[in-house]
């Protein structure tokens, strides 16, 4: 029973972190049709910035806020000063298909290298703001701490805010419109470029939050979030790249599958399990579980 409860709880908390990464990836995909591999680099860089703030100010929360804000700024900056020039230059020839992917991969490499230059490769730590000791549930201690709970709450709040933003505000409407039909949106007076940059900023903020929630349970080093990128991407694909809800659902499905198989079958099968889920989903629904039926031209 203890094992089951632990598995459920750890699935929820790991699923939550995957959800943040997959949300970030989906946000960028919807606005720019690009898989932003640099997301892992952005997230870890903003986490390093958060680490510096935490070390200097002594407060985790200030560091968290700084990480989220710098994540947004970094995301916006990358769209404005990196992706847009690339799209402008590369507009003919078969390279158009893969140039953005390759560009974000290259950006990931550059960011991680720069982190190595500045901070070195030693592992750093960020102290969690609240206890990381196991909680007592039904009389026994499980491997789920108040901090894990905080992660779950933070992600849920983020998702609720994003949903409200997208469904109930004008900006949200503009974001959805620009992603779905950019020409029509432009004709309606929406500044599509600015809106797209906003999408990148939101994604960057989500990544920054993910980093500050993930690293206290682990160590801080340039490649620390690479595995999150992989899982976030798989989760986004499972859920259907066009759907934010799909991103979260996919992340949860993945989190549960991975943790349960690790707990009950073998920890060695974590990645193969993820791959299996992915291939099964895509064989049935090649565009993800929650994708809308019709295909778009864009």
């Amino acid at each position, binding site marked *: 029973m*203890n*094992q089951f409860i*632990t598995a459920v709880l*750890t699935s929820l908390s790991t699923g939550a972190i995957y959800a943040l990464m997959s949300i970030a990836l989906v946000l960028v995909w919807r606005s720019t049709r690009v898989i932003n591999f640099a997301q892992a680099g952005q997230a870890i860089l903003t986490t390093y910035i958060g680490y510096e703030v935490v070390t200097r100010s002594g407060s985790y929360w200030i560091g968290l806020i700084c990480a989220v804000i710098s994540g947004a700024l970094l995301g916006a900056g990358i769209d404005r000063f990196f992706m847009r020039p690339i799209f402008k230059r590369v507009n003919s020839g078969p390279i158009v298909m893969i140039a953005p992917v390759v560009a974000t991969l290259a950006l990931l490499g550059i960011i991680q290298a720069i982190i190595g230059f500045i901070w070195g*490769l*030693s*592992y750093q*730590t960020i102290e969690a703001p609240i206890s*990381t*000791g*196991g909680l007592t549930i039904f009389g026994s*201690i*499980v*491997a789920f*701490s108040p901090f894990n709970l905080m992660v779950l709450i933070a992600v849920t709040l983020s998702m609720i805010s994003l949903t409200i933003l997208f469904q109930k505000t004008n900006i949200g409407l503009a974001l959805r419109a620009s992603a779905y039909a950019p020409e029509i949106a432009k004709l309606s007076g929406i500044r599509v470029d600015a809106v797209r940059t906003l999408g990148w900023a939101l994604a960057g903020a989500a990544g920054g939050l993910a980093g500050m929630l993930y690293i206290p*349970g*682990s*160590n801080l080093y340039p490649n620390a979030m690479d595995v999150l990128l992989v899982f976030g991407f798989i989760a986004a694909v499972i859920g259907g790249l066009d759907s934010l809800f799909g991103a979260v659902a996919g992340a949860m499905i993945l989190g549960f599958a991975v*943790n349960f198989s*690790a*707990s009950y079958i073998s*920890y*060695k099968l974590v990645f193969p399990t993820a791959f299996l889920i992915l291939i099964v989903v895509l064989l049935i629904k090649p565009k993800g579980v929650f994708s809308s039926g019709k295909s778009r031209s864009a």
Partner: protein
Amino acid sequence: MIRNTRMKRFSIVSVVATVGALVFSTLPAQAAEPGLSAKEIKLGYSGPLTGSAGQVYGKLPGAMKAYFDHINANGGVNGRKIKLVVRDDKYLPTLAATQTTNLVLNDKVFALVGALGTATHSKAYVAAQLAKNNVPDLFVNTGFSGFANATKYPTAFTILPSYAMEAKIMAKFIKDTPTLAPQASFLIAQDDEFGVDGVNGFKLAGHSFAAAPTLYPQGGLSAALAEGALTKLSAVPGKPVLVLFGTTDSTAVILKAAEKLSLVSKFTWIAGSVGGDANTLLALGVKPATINGALAASFFPDAKDATDPYVSEFMKINTKYNKGVSFDNVVLQGMNSAMLTVQSLRAAGKNLTRAGLIKAIESKGASFASAGLVPLNYSASSRVGYNGYWFGQLNEKGELKPFGGKLSVYTTDSSSTSAPTASSYERKPVPKNGVPTNS
């Protein structure tokens, strides 16, 4: 069409020509022995500098270099200065293979010293063709007993007691200690030759664990896995004995998982010598209260024991040549190996050759001065270095004090079922100023 193939052939030929020009320019001047000149001896090290194992063992080459700097400042070895080339292999077998090959082919070192890692170095030894090129492989930093097999690794000399030896002595210790003998015992080990060597050692000693060993992939022990394993073990009645056979970073993960689950006092912890370095555990974030009372084996004096003549001498060298690095067991290990290396080079004489170096260790190695509290066992028929351990208990400050107050050293071998025997070995006095004068 024609233009394309002409263009293609032109580009092929130009590439070939460029490559040819490049390679012609690198024809080496043929030296008698690689890595050796009238003024310099080049030695090579391959081990983890970055990555999780690098956090723990990254300071090893720096410690060796500091000792070599000290020797160079005091005249070098027979007039030659020692230069250490260091390559990072991140504890990955494949990278170790290419880096060691680079040390031999690219950096052209005279000998390797202190290569670290079982799976990494066993791969690297074969890939870099050390046997074929007769490259001496001194004082390999691993307890894998296989390296002492001179047929398979003809140029290698081990230094650490093997994991099989350690397991046998651990088994004896558990059996002889009244508080531990009746408890159930479990083994959590690294899933490669390192861990398997330990498993075999326990078998040789006739020790049976209450369950099959939990094996985790080298470098891949996640917090979740550790928590899961410990949760399962928490159901065992009494105070089980947990033996941890792995690198220090993995030991840290397991101990931190125990902290999270409030299971620290549930078990008696026995950490292997490789993974039980208290200072590193504390540096990796394990709480002092957690390591208090944990048992660990060692064959060195405790690195914090400034009354020990070897430790104090090395501490001086560390302060002078290795600024900013705190002195711990890893630094002690590095400097000790460096001191043995210098003695080996001296013993090989001024007319230094690779074959001569190997012979020198075989014939004189057992009499070298070293910080170990157990003897070195080099001979014409043995590549085994240290062969014993003493057991101690850690306190909150990370100091290892002899268990029960009395230092009892035991020695044994890696392959027989005979029980460890008490050792009465006395160390040679530390060379004056830390500079050996042997020949």
